[in-house]
């Protein structure tokens, strides 16, 4: 910009970049320069869109079985009966050929793998966003309280965090999931447990998964939030706000939170792949969402026994999982690098 100004013969006091940029604009420019990160973000947005319009782009529903055509290889055509063709949502449309070809093969019960993979994005994205939101909210609340008020409250919360750090997460999550599912199978209906179980069943088993993942993952966020609050607490503008007589809640909400929210959001984005993994692992063991709702982990579990002869049963959901986590990793890395002032100008 300055070179252009000089070339046009404009006065040189335009050497200073006259456009003032907010930190967000700076970060957005840095983010755009990182091609991998942009690709990652695009894939994430695409996956969200796919999750919403899933019924439009899949020929079959995720539970439509066709046991005579089970374990079909990808891109194999077959002759289907009239009644079965009517189960296909593309029947009678120009895309009717999609009803006669299994795009990615079929699983052991004859369900279209491509459709299940698309519907599986819903589960993974739900876990990613809801789980991370729960962890973010709980972590920010506890971390800010702990960091701002200090003293005994801080001690108590930090003791709790240290205690939780020693817990082996996966075994406990597994136990909790078994407990919730056993309760659901018993048909408990009274009290809070009954209400929760009803909600869980209506969500296909997702609610308890969210609770389990959220409860045991807020710790890192709380520690980060506390550290950030501690580093901001002694800055002059907070002192100024206190001396003018701002109430504590005003200081927290108007001054502290907007400053610490950025790094926390980025850290949470970087933790999302772990949530997707955890859900896949739980579904792999059989403790995830209730069948027939497809989850990539449970699809891998179903297909694992036939790995030798039908590798596509494992590879299709596996590749989908890999791409989604790859996208989130690229996007998270790009966000972190874009907001880090030391990385400015360096890739």
């Amino acid at each position, binding site marked *: 910009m300055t070179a252009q100004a000089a070339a046009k013969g404009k006065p040189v006091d335009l050497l200073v970049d006259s456009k003032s940029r907010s930190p967000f604009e700076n970060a957005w420019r840095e983010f755009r320069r990182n091609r*991998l990160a942009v690709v990652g973000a695009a894939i994430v947005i695409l996956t969200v869109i796919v999750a919403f319009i899933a019924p439009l782009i899949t020929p079959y529903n995720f539970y439509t079985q066709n046991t005579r055509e089970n374990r079909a290889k990808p891109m194999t055509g077959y002759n289907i009966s009239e009644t079965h063709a009517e189960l296909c949502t593309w029947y009678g449309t120009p895309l009717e050929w999609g009803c006669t070809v299994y795009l990615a093969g079929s699983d052991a019960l004859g369900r279209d793998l491509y459709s299940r993979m698309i519907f599986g994005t819903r589960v993974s994205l739900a876990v990613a966003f809801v789980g991370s939101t729960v962890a973010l909210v709980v972590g920010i609340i506890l971390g800010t309280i702990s960091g701002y008020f200090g003293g005994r409250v801080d001690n108590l919360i930090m003791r709790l965090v240290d205690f939780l750090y*020693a817990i082996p*997460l996966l075994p406990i999550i597994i136990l909790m999931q078994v407990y919730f599912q*056993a309760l659901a199978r018993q048909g408990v209906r009274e009290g809070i447990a009954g209400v929760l179980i009803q909600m869980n069943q209506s969500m296909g088993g997702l609610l308890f998964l969210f609770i389990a993942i959220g409860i045991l993952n807020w710790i890192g966020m709380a520690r980060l939030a506390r550290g950030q609050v501690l580093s901001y607490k002694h800055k002059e503008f907070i002192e100024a706000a206190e001396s003018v007589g701002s109430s504590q809640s005003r200081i927290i909400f108007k001054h502290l939170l907007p400053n610490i929210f950025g790094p926390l959001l980025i850290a949470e984005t970087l933790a999302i792949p772990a949530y997707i*993994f955890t859900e896949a692992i739980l579904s792999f063991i059989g403790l995830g969402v209730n069948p027939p709702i497809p989850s990539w982990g449970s699809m*891998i579990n179903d297909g694992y026994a036939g790995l030798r002869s039908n590798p596509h049963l494992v590879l299709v959901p*596996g590749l989908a*999982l890999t791409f989604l*986590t*790859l996208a989130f990793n690229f996007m998270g890395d790009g966000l972190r690098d874009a907001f880090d002032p030391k990385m400015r100008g360096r890739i």
Partner: protein
Amino acid sequence: MTKFIIRRILVAIPVMFAIALATFLLVQALPGGPFDTVGQKAMPEHIRELLERRYGLDQPIYVQFFNYLGNLLQGDLGPMLRSSTDDVNDIVAQTFPVSIQLGLLSILLGFIIGIPTGILAALKHNSVVDSAATLIAVLGVSIPNLVLGPLLILIFGVWLGWLPIAFWGADPPFTLYFLPPLTSQFWTHAVLPVFAIGTGISAGVSRLTRAGLLEVLAEDYIRTARSKGLRERAVVSVHALKNSLIPVATVMGPLFAGAVTGSLIVEQIFAINGMGRRYIQSIGSREYFLLTSLTLVYSVVLIIGNIAVDVMYAWLDPRIRYD
């Protein structure tokens, strides 16, 4: 430093007590009991009561927990409810060394591959080597064990047939409790599972080493060292390296936990007779004592790992002082 370690160990004791209590209550709350079925049929009621009385399961929960704690302090981890030949100590002796070997080998592989790769990527910053290494690193972090395991089995076990696809190469007892025997059978069996967990770890370590080294190389004291005329190799290895490993050390705790939990899945996939697989198998059969004891063993491993990580962190960064 010793005071710090002792204090951490003392703090860990109530933590382990709380974990044991929580797990014990949680597994007892699971509907159904260990003696509900014999084979495919339901267990007759009076025999079930006899069995429960034999193992003390008919007593109030706090009495059961108290007895369990008492036995624990004497080194007895409890009985196995569905096996008449082993008790929990035997199961742990059979499976724990295998899990330790798997975990340690994976972490070792992670560092052996990750740190040199990160260093190389940082030294050749912004070149093709750097971009390739970063890409491979992110790929390695993104492919879950769940996918990498079957993929490795498919490529190296089924299609190429080079490596065995299941089981661990050696059975306990091992020398010094966890040192592996140096037989080819052990190493051929160990390659695939260790790679399945280790590549993920190495990818994370490589990213952090690269980021840390890049940050350190931009510091002023490195510029001083270079202007003094030191060879580049001396600059990197003597001055830059130790400080660049600090970000790696901060993440070692979660890394360790990740290796422990990652081995849970890999043990399922590769049918390795380790602690994780036993854990998952015994949930269905409601092995109360085994589950509680294994959770305790896991948390002991985590606590020791966290303490070791803090000690190493203090060694790497002399500015850190734990008083």
